[in-house]
């Protein structure tokens, strides 16, 4: 499976698309596949400040739930409100319309993976 090249990944299957001082955060196509049909996404509030690796919410499918961890530190400036009524967007377009939050960076990204490195990680986990 190919993962978008221009963004960074962490080991808990979130991605960060960094553009200048801001970043958009979401979960990967692999993560949404593992969860199955997503039914609910719990996100932080605008104004919350989180450090890299902090829990930023949770995501639920019918029979599973998983905590979300922010890949890079920042202040939340937007949450994807469309997910409240259409959480399936995370299944359908995890790297686009299914994004979770936007943040203003307070930190340099550290220890994140490239698309190739992430693909390797996924390949090893699938075993």
């Amino acid at each position, binding site marked *: 499976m190919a993962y978008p090249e221009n963004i960074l990944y962490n080991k808990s299957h979130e991605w960060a698309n960094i553009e200048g001082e801001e970043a958009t955060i979401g979960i990967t196509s692999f993560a949404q596949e593992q969860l199955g*049909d997503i*039914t*609910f996404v719990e996100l932080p509030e605008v104004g919350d400040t989180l450090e890299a690796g902090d829990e930023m919410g949770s995501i*639920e*499918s*019918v*029979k599973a739930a998983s905590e979300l961890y922010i890949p890079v530190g920042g202040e939340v400036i937007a949450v994807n409100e469309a997910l409240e009524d259409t*959480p*399936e967007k995370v299944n359908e377009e995890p790297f686009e319309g299914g994004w979770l939050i936007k943040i203003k960076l307070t930190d340099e990204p550290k220890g994140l993976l490239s698309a190739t490195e992430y693909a390797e990680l996924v390949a090893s986990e699938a075993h």
Partner: protein
Amino acid sequence: MKTLFAQSVPGRTACLPPKPEERAERFLPKELMRAKRPVLPEVSELDVVRHFTRLSTLNYSVDSNFYPLGSCTMKYNPKYTEYVASLPGYTTPHPALPQLPKGAQFTQGSLQTMYEAEEMLCELTGMEAFTSQPMAGANGELTGALLIAAYHKHKGNKKTKIICPDAAHGTNPASAVLAGYEVVNIESKDGIVDPEALEAVLDDSVAAVMMTCPNTLGLFESHLPTIVEKLRRVDALLYYDGANFNAIMGKMRIGDVGFDVVHLNVHKTLATPHGGGGPGAGPVGVSERLVPFLPTHRPAKAEDGTYYLDTDLPLSIGHVSPFYGSFAVMLKAYAYMVLLGGEGLTQATERAVLNANYMRKRLENHLYIPYNRICMHEFVASASKLQDECGVRALDLAKGLLEKGHHAPTIYFPLIVKECLMFEPTETESKETLDGFLDDLIDLIETAKKDPEALFSAPHNTPVRRLDETKAAREMVLTDEV
């Protein structure tokens, strides 16, 4: 089936009390009254009787089907216990009555019942004392965790963690957190708790370890003495989850082997009915060092032979239920123990273990059994090899069994075995019933290999077929809007 709300016809009535002389407006000012009458079914008594009779027929139950649901001990619930619990002498007394001046003399029967039931539980488990207050198994776990907290607080111990093995019931970590503890998970080795994994996380901050024995794989925890010894070193307590107690009655007593706290699920081991999800009761037993912390209003016996409620317990954690717990449920459990006696209870355990091993042995050539050795009252099989072979999963086998008129085993628990199916036949099932079930299951496994589609689409003949759970969770229709 139409809901009772959809069957409602305005003006139709069933069991109406006499007409009051005064209406509520006489006693309450308008601003304290509701604007509209509540929308409740307006139906005849026959409508109600027919509706619920028909609904009942849509259920599988122990009374109608074999129900080998692992970890749930779905044994037969003897009918006389219902009779006992419905005696007016038991159903009438108000729970606050014995707390009033001279009130205890009018409730000697209930107080004696509670006292004797707790005494018998002590002998059955080897614990020093019991409380009947916790209202279900999970509530017993929470009570146990609160007792552990009270003990450490009293001793001045600074404890922040409770250790749970990975095979534990989900209620264990959830209860520990609700009681204010951080949960530390440890991985099992060979299906049982690994003393080295325990040692690696054990320090002075550990308040307790929550275990069950046999564990959720149906295996005896053979390192128990080592574990007890390790815990003593850091003054950590050992908790026993009684969900699997049906495996050891008369064979091992929880108190004798070093456990400090135990909850029993009387709706499992002691044959009180599950009621489609409750009510249960989760009496908690403790070792000597935890007795002072038990919930207050403990049934006690005075020197003159009368019974009373003891409130002289300065270290008590207080009340975990408003009065004395699910009294009527505990009463049924006690009635069950009285009828069976020590020998009968031991035999219940023996035959539960016999049935489980018989099933395991007959299945071993058909389904992968990860820890295939003598088990206790239940065992875990896995459909993972079947899945590799033909795509049929544990879920599909479960649905296939429903189609054949059996309840399914527990699936996808414990979490440490992939595609697992957990079978607990209990002692009340006959060899013919087990054989009938096993023949059907083996037949399903054979079908799966030849025609997996037949299982993917099962069940076909149940009141409804596979339901869209995603739709339910996304749309959240939780009430009937008519």
